[in-house]
């Protein structure tokens, strides 16, 4: 290791140091945790800014285990944004839940570090370390409300399935190592390519795909998702629905494009089949949910289905990385709209900490009680549906465009029909908020906390700006692939 090696991991170093600082400061703080919130937030902002500052550079570090390129930068910025928005929506929620502790923010920071490493790794071991760092932090976050049964259940479920998935992934990695004798992406890819496709490669491909499929909640490995989202603290569920998912896709894209270049035709078909299945499962079950948190969980599965269609298209498109760019763009768009939707849930929970149960019925008449919350929720719902003028539309437009480009028009037709189905359950939230009157009287409301309001405003602004002027995110997504493969 040389001092030069530290440059690519500056964003992560900042986060790690801040995380440790949070833990050191915590014992000195009383009930007011503002200092730790500020530390976490500042670290995430600096980390994101540092990542932006590193864009355009190409460097490999730590004997090629970690690289710095625009692809990694894209995700580092995205993860920092997701982390920051999560931190902003947390303090009031945690206070209302009676568990406001600094460790929470440290765990978020460590999870972001893990996610960063997943996107920046060029080595299966480094990738796995990142994955586990993210996963272990996530298990703890899921169970953070440890006096609540549901939170415990969420942590336990997440831990068991997550550990299982990690083991499967690791088994796949070990097979790859056995066949190639190295863990470096490019070298493995080249060795496997020279050796040709075979049963071993197919098995390794399948194992890694299944393991990662668990992480991103791809059907049929999605079962844990609704329970974990429902039980976890709402800001944490928000974080889970975007961060680890995007990190999973960041790693999958790289691993499958390099390590499993040889089995491209296999995994492409697998992704297409699983995309259809995942879209079906996510949308069909979301239709039946009366609990908004569970509905959003299934909706996140549906969105994974659309993303998988993009991966399928990518596999068929040879050296054309249009579909990969589309996946990146979609992840960015999805991050903001989903964080926004969960942010509204967090807000409503802080309004009625004791009684609010996230049921659809409790949204009745929200348009009158909290017009701003209702309007923003409406915006996020329309964005998730894919209405023009929002980030969700441009995301779908880009993604389905790449699917059509890969001569998979039939798959695009299936995907848009599922989008039409999804309109029903997203609109249902709007129906309750604006078209129905509340069934029960609600207590006078408290003013929204400043940070939460900031989180919602930023998410909404991102959704609208990306929806109307998407070029800068498009350029970033294209640069990510252009520089790496160009």
């Amino acid at each position, binding site marked *: 290791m040389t001092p030069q090696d530290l440059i690519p991991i500056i964003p992560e170093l900042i986060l790690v140091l801040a995380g440790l600082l949070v833990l050191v400061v915590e014992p000195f703080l009383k009930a007011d945790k503002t200092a730790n919130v500020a530390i976490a937030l500042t670290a995430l902002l600096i980390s994101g800014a540092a990542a932006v500052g590193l864009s355009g550079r190409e460097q490999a570090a730590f004997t090629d285990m970690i690289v710095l390129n625009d692809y990694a930068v894209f995700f580092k910025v995205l993860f920092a944004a997701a982390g920051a928005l999560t931190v902003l929506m947390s303090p009031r929620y945690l206070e209302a839940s009676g568990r406001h502790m600094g460790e929470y923010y440290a765990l978020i920071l460590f999870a972001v570090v893990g996610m960063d490493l997943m996107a920046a790794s060029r080595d299966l071991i480094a990738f796995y370390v990142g994955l586990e760092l993210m996963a272990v932090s996530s298990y703890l976050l899921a169970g953070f409300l440890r006096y609540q049964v549901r939170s415990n259940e969420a942590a336990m479920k997440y831990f068991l399935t997550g550990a299982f998935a990690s083991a499967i992934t690791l088994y796949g990695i070990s097979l790859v190592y056995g066949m190639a004798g190295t863990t470096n992406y490019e070298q493995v890819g080249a060795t496997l390519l020279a050796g040709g496709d075979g049963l071993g490669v197919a098995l390794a491909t399948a194992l890694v795909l299944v393991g990662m499929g668990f992480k991103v909640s791809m059907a049929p490995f999605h079962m844990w998702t609704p329970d974990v989202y429902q039980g976890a603290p709402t800001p944490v569920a928000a974080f889970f629905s975007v961060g680890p998912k995007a990190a999973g896709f960041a790693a999958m894209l790289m691993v499958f494009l390099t390590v499993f270049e040889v089995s491209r035709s296999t995994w492409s078909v697998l992704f297409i089949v699983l995309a259809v299945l995942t879209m079906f499962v996510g949308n069909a079950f979301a239709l039946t949910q009366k609990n908004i948190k569970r509905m959003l969980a299934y909706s996140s599965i549906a969105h994974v289905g659309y993303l998988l269609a993009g991966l399928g298209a990518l596999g068929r498109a040879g050296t054309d990385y249009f579909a990969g760019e589309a996946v990146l763009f979609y992840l960015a768009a999805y991050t903001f709209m989903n964080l926004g939707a969960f942010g509204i849930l967090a807000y409503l929970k802080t309004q009625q900490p004791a009684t609010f149960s996230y049921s659809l019925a409790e949204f009745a008449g929200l348009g009158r009680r909290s017009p701003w919350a209702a309007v923003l929720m409406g915006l996020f719902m*329309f964005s998730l*549906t*894919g*209405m*023009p*003028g929002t980030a969700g*539309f441009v995301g779908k*437009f880009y993604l*389905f*465009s790449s699917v*059509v*480009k890969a001569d998979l*028009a039939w798959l*695009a*037709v299936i995907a*848009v*029909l599922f*989008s*039409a189905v999804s*309109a*029903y359950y997203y*609109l249902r939230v*709007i*129906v309750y908020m*604006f*078209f*129905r009157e509340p069934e029960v009287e609600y207590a006078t409301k408290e003013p929204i906390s400043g940070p939460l309001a900031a989180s919602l405003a930023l998410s909404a602004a991102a959704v609208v700006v990306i929806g109307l002027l*998407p*070029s800068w995110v*498009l*350029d970033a997504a*294209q640069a990510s692939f252009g520089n790496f493969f160009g």
Partner: protein
Amino acid sequence: MEFGFAEQIGFRALSLLTFLPSLGALIMVLFMRGRPSAYKAAALVASLATFALSVFMLTAFDTSTAAFQFQENFVWIENFGINYRMGVDGISMLMVLLTTFLSVIAIIGSWNYVKDRELAFFASLLVLETGMIGVFTSMDLFLFYVFWEVQLIPMYFIIGIWGGARRIYAATKFFLYTFAGSVLMLVAMLAVVWWYGKESGALTFDILTLQNAGFPSDLQFWGFLAFFVAFAIKVPMFPVHTWLPDAHVEAPTAGSVILAGVLLKMGVYGMIRFCIGFFPEATVNAVPYVMVLSVIAIVYGAAVSLVQPDMKKLVAYSSVSHMGFVTAGLFTFNLQGIEGSVLQMVNHGILTGALFQMVGFFYERTHTREIKDYGGMARPLPIAAAFFSLFVLGSLGLPGLNGFVGEFLILIGLFQYMKVFAVVASLGIILGAAYLLWMYERTMFGELTNQKWLSLKDLNAREILTLAPLAAMSVVIGVWPGPFLEMLHAPSLEIIAKVEPFMAQKQSLVQMASAFLGGF
């Protein structure tokens, strides 16, 4: 660019026209909360200014050309070749005028209609106007799709919040029907754009470029099908019309006026611009099917109207019938048929808008729409009855009023094209006269069914102000359709020129029909 905005009018008239209503809505929402007289006045001013601007644009409009005018163009999303490009030809200009005109009417007409969340209601109407104008002025496929989808949202809220008892069902159905059609159209859009992109090496969503792309037959077939279904839902054509009666009956009056007056026309406009523009070969092959569906819509819509006990539903189903004329006329691909078809869209917008407005005025007084609850209303409401008779007569095609001109031209077109369709369509006119006159007789003439109605007040000045422009337009187009047809002349010839090469090859309906099925 010969017909750029700079040469023609000196300012970005189309952008201004499109976003002026939304700007008004924004000002209302930001600065006029809780002051009904202020925001209502602002809504009126915004819509009037938009209308005035659209009329002013006519002075600079060149009717001798089919070219798009007042063009604006700048790069929007470079990576995809998406531009913000606007322009109007005679057909879209006429549709824009209809939109701005009816928006003013809708706002005056619902001045005292809503009591709840009034500001949001007027703001929604204005945002809706932006969406509608945008649909008619876009010259970029992506921009068109954005407006096409965005106008769904305000209409969804108008039906869902201010609608009748089954408003939630109706609003959701309206949204999902259109959305499902639109997303399929989106895939077709992407398919044609990629085909052209691979062919020419550059992505573009420019409508004029794509119209000259010359897509291969199989892409024409699938593209036509996807676009056509999306637009047919909007028109609505038989058998995808089932959302319309629900949406119309549940929508508030202004919603019905705009829905019937403008939104339905967006479907036909889309067919002209995209089905015919992009896929002329598939269009020609599809003519027999479209004709049959149109004629079914004419007769079926009229027959269902005949048995409706509810006035609003009757007018709604009559729309299905009248829009059948419009699609039938368009697909004759002769000059009379096409011009009649587009003019009939305007006529239908005016007359059906007026009929919905009248039903709304009656309902505000009696709180019923059942025909059997009315009777002898001409006695307490003579002015209303007079207006009603004018619109009913216009709608059934009385010479001297506008409905006649459009239907007559369409029938000439149909007759030239194939006599049997003209004969069946005429049956629709006879049925139309029957259900409209019968409704008029049962509601306005005869004995008063309810003595309470005697105390009803006749139309007030504002209500007369709402109806008078509609009545005036009905008479003007009825006796002097020349200027309107003149606007349509050049674009109609353009349409014919587009399909003619493919028409010549196909002799009989059977040949065309089997050629279309060959697409599978």
